[in-house]
C-alpha cells in the first residue's frame, strides 16, 4: 500500500500533472457554477481537448473537473438558490436562507471546508477499499460480472427518485441502443447498422453524452428562459470557529453517508446529498433551525456529495462499472485512451491508478485554497448572460464531437441525441439509467454471451454461483425492501389516523 501511494505521489506531483490538475479543478469550479453546465457535460465536451495529453494527465484533469464541479455547484445554490449541479440542489434549502441573513460567506466557507474533509475521508476509504475489491473482483467469472451489472442497473433505476417504470424504461432503452453494431458472440453479425460502417463498432458513447448533456441542456435552457441576473451578495468571508465546531458532526456523518451511497454502482452523489440532509435533519442538535439557515444543513449535504463523488470511483476503477453519469463519461475516456477500467487495471497500470487517486488529494487541497478566498470572484461569473454562453457551448460540443473520431457522422449524432436529451428533460425522464444502460450494454452482453457459453446455452448457470446468487438477491432486495418499508409506513400512518 505504502509503495503504491509513493508511486502515486511520484506520478501526480510532476509539474505537468499538478498544472493540469489545477486547470481541471479550476474549470470544474467554473463549470459547476455556470447554469446549464454540469460535471457530466463539462467532462464530455472537454474530453477531446485532452487527446494530446498522456492518459494519466488527461484523466487527472478530467477527474479534477468532476470534483471541482461539486464545489462550484454550491456557489450558485447558496447565492441565488439555483444549483449549478444536481448534487447541490438540497444545499439551496439552508444555504440560501443563510445568504439571505448575510451569512453567504460562512455557508460557502463551511461548504468548502466540509467538502475538503469529506474528500480526504472518502479518499482514504477509497484507497483502502478499491484495491482489495479489485483483488476480489479478479476472481469474478463472467457469471458474477453478469450479476454485478444487473445490480448496477437495478440500483440506478431504484434510486432515481422518480417512477420506477420510467427509470427502468430508460435503462432498457440505453441497453437497447448499445446493441447496435457487431454482435460480440460471433464477431460478424451486424445489428441495426443499416449498412452504415460508422455504426459497426456501435453507437459512440462520448458523442451520445455530448448530445444528451450539452446540446439537450442548451435546448432546454432556451425554452425555459433566462433567469434573473443576480449580483452576489457577498459581504463577509469570515467563518467563526463555532460554526466549524458546530458543523463537524454533520460533516463527519455526511462523509460517511456520502461514501456509503457513492460506492454503490449507479447511486450517485445527488441521492447521497438528499439522504444526508434528511438524516441530519432528524439527528442534529440544531434540527429546529433546519430550513431556516442552519449551517449543518449546508455542511451535511456538501460533505456527502463530495464523499460520494470520490466513492463513485470505487466501482468504476475496481469493477469497471460506473458509479454515476460523470464516472460513466470518465469510463468512456479510459477506453478512448486504450485502458479498460476494472480489476486488472490495478495490476496492469499501477502508476496511472495510484497517480489518479493521489491527484484527488492534491486537487482537493487546490480546491480548498481556491474556494476559500476566491469564491466571491467565481460568483461574479454568474453575471455572464446565457445568451453569450450557449453559443459557445454549441461550438465546443460540435467541434469536440468531430474531434473524437474526425468524422461528421459524430456531429450529426450529437445533434440527434441532443434532441433526444431535450425531450428527456422536457418529459422529466431520468438520464442516468439511460447512460448507465448505454455504458454497461456491451459489457453486459459480453458477460451474457460468456455465461451462456459456460452453461452451454443454459443461463441458469448463474444460480450455481453463490456470489452471483448473493448479488442478485441483493438486487431484488433493493427493489423490494423500499417498497415494503413504504407500504408499512403508509399502513402505520393510516392506523394512526384511524386511532
Amino acid at each position: 500500500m505504502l509503495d503504491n501511494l509513493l508511486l502515486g505521489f511520484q506520478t501526480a506531483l510532476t509539474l505537468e500533472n499538478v498544472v493540469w490538475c489545477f486547470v481541471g479543478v479550476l474549470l470544474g469550479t467554473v463549470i459547476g457554477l455556470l447554469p446549464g453546465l454540469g460535471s457530466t457535460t463539462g467532462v464530455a465536451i472537454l474530453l477531446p481537448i485532452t487527446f494530446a495529453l498522456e492518459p494519466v494527465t488527461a484523466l487527472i484533469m478530467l477527474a479534477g473537473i468532476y470534483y471541482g464541479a461539486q464545489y462550484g455547484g454550491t456557489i450558485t445554490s447558496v447565492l441565488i438558490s439555483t444549483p449549478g449541479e444536481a448534487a447541490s440542489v438540497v444545499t439551496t434549502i439552508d444555504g440560501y436562507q443563510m445568504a439571505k441573513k448575510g451569512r453567504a460567506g460562512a455557508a460557502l466557507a463551511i461548504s468548502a471546508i466540509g467538502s475538503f474533509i469529506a474528500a480526504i475521508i472518502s479518499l482514504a476509504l477509497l484507497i483502502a477499499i478499491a484495491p482489495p475489491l479489485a483483488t476480489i473482483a479478479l476472481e469474478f467469472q463472467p457469471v458474477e460480472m453478469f450479476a454485478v451489472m444487473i445490480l448496477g442497473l437495478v440500483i440506478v433505476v431504484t434510486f432515481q427518485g422518480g417512477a420506477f417504470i420510467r427509470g427502468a424504461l430508460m435503462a432498457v432503452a440505453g441497453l437497447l441502443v448499445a446493441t447496435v453494431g457487431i454482435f460480440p458472440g460471433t464477431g460478424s453479425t451486424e445489428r441495426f447498422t443499416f449498412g452504415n460502417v460508422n455504426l459497426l463498432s456501435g453507437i459512440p458513447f462520448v458523442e451520445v453524452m455530448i448530445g444528451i448533456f450539452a446540446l439537450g441542456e442548451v435546448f432546454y435552457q432556451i425554452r425555459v428562459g433566462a433567469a434573473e441576473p443576480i449580483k452576489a451578495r457577498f459581504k463577509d468571508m469570515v467563518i467563526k470557529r463555532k460554526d466549524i465546531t458546530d458543523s463537524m458532526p454533520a460533516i463527519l456523518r455526511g462523509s460517511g453517508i456520502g461514501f456509503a451511497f457513492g460506492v454503490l454502482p449507479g447511486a450517485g452523489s445527488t441521492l447521497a446529498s438528499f439522504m444526508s440532509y434528511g438524516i441530519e435533519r432528524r439527528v442534529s442538535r440544531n434540527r429546529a433551525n433546519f430550513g431556516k439557515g442552519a449551517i449543518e444543513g449546508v455542511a451535511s449535504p456538501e460533505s456527502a456529495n463530495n464523499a460520494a463523488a470520490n466513492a463513485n470511483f470505487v466501482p468504476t476503477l475496481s469493477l469497471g462499472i460506473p458509479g454515476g453519469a460523470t464516472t460513466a463519461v470518465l469510463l468512456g475516456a479510459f477506453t478512448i485512451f486504450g485502458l479498460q477500467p476494472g480489476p486488472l487495471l490495478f495490476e496492469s497500470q499501477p502508476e496511472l491508478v495510484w497517480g489518479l487517486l493521489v491527484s484527488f488529494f492534491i486537487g482537493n487541497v487546490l480546491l480548498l485554497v481556491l474556494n476559500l478566498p476566491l469564491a466571491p470572484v467565481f460568483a461574479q461569473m454568474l453575471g455572464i448572460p446565457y445568451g453569450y454562453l450557449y453559443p459557445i457551448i454549441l461550438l465546443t460540443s460540435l467541434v469536440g464531437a468531430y474531434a473524437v473520431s474526425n468524422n461528421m457522422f459524430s456531429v450529426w449524432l450529437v445533434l440527434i441525441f441532443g434532441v433526444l436529451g431535450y425531450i428527456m428533460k422536457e418529459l422529466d425522464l431520468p438520464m442516468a439509467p439511460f447512460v448507465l444502460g448505454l455504458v454497461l450494454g456491451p459489457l453486459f452482453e459480453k458477460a451474457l454471451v460468456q455465461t451462456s457459453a459456460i452453461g452451454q446455452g443454459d443461463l441458469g448457470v448463474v444460480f450455481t454461483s453463490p456470489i452471483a446468487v448473493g448479488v442478485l438477491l441483493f438486487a431484488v432486495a433493493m427493489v423490494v425492501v423500499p417498497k415494503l418499508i413504504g407500504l408499512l409506513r403508509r399502513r402505520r400512518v393510516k392506523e394512526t389516523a384511524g386511532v
Partner: protein
Amino acid sequence: MTLTPRIARVAFSAALALLGIAAAIGGWGYGVTQDNGQVGAGFLPVALGVIMALLAGADAVMALLQREERRAVDELGTLGSEVDAAAIDHVEESPDIDALGRSQRQRNRMLAIVGGMLLVALLLVPLLGLLLSLGLLMLAVAIAVERRPVVSSVIITVIAVGAFHIIFGLLLRVPLPTGLIGFI
C-alpha cells in the same frame, strides 16, 4: 390541438413502445440462439425490445390515467418541495415571462430558430468548413436570436473560433473539414 405534457409523454412512450417492438422483430431476424444453443445476436434485442415495449406501454397507460407518481425515495419528495420553497424568491410575477421579458411563445420560437440555424450550419459544413459554419451559427444566434450587441458578439465569435482553430487545428492537429472554400 395543444401539445400538453401529458400528451407528449404518451406520444413519446408510444414511440418507444413501437421502437421496442421493431427492435424485437429485427432481433428475431438475427437469431435468438446460435446453432449450438447459446445466446444469439438477436437474444438481447428481442428481450430488451419486448421489455421496452411493455414498460413504455405501461408508462403510456399511467400517463393517460394521470396516476400520481410516487417517489421511490420518500425523502426526495418532501425535500423537493422545500427546495422549491427556498427558490420562491426567484419566481417571476408571471411564470410565462423570463428575466429578459420574453414570453413562453417567444422562447419556443427561439428554440425552433436555433434548431433550424444549427441544421443549416451543419448542412453548410461541406461548403464553408466546420469552424466557419459554426462560427457563423454562433454569431447569428448571438445577434439575431439573443439580440446581443453586434460588436461584442463579433469579438466573442472571432476569439472563440480562433481559440478552437489553435486548440483543435494547430495543437491537436485534428483535420477539421475546411469545406470547398478551404479557409479554416
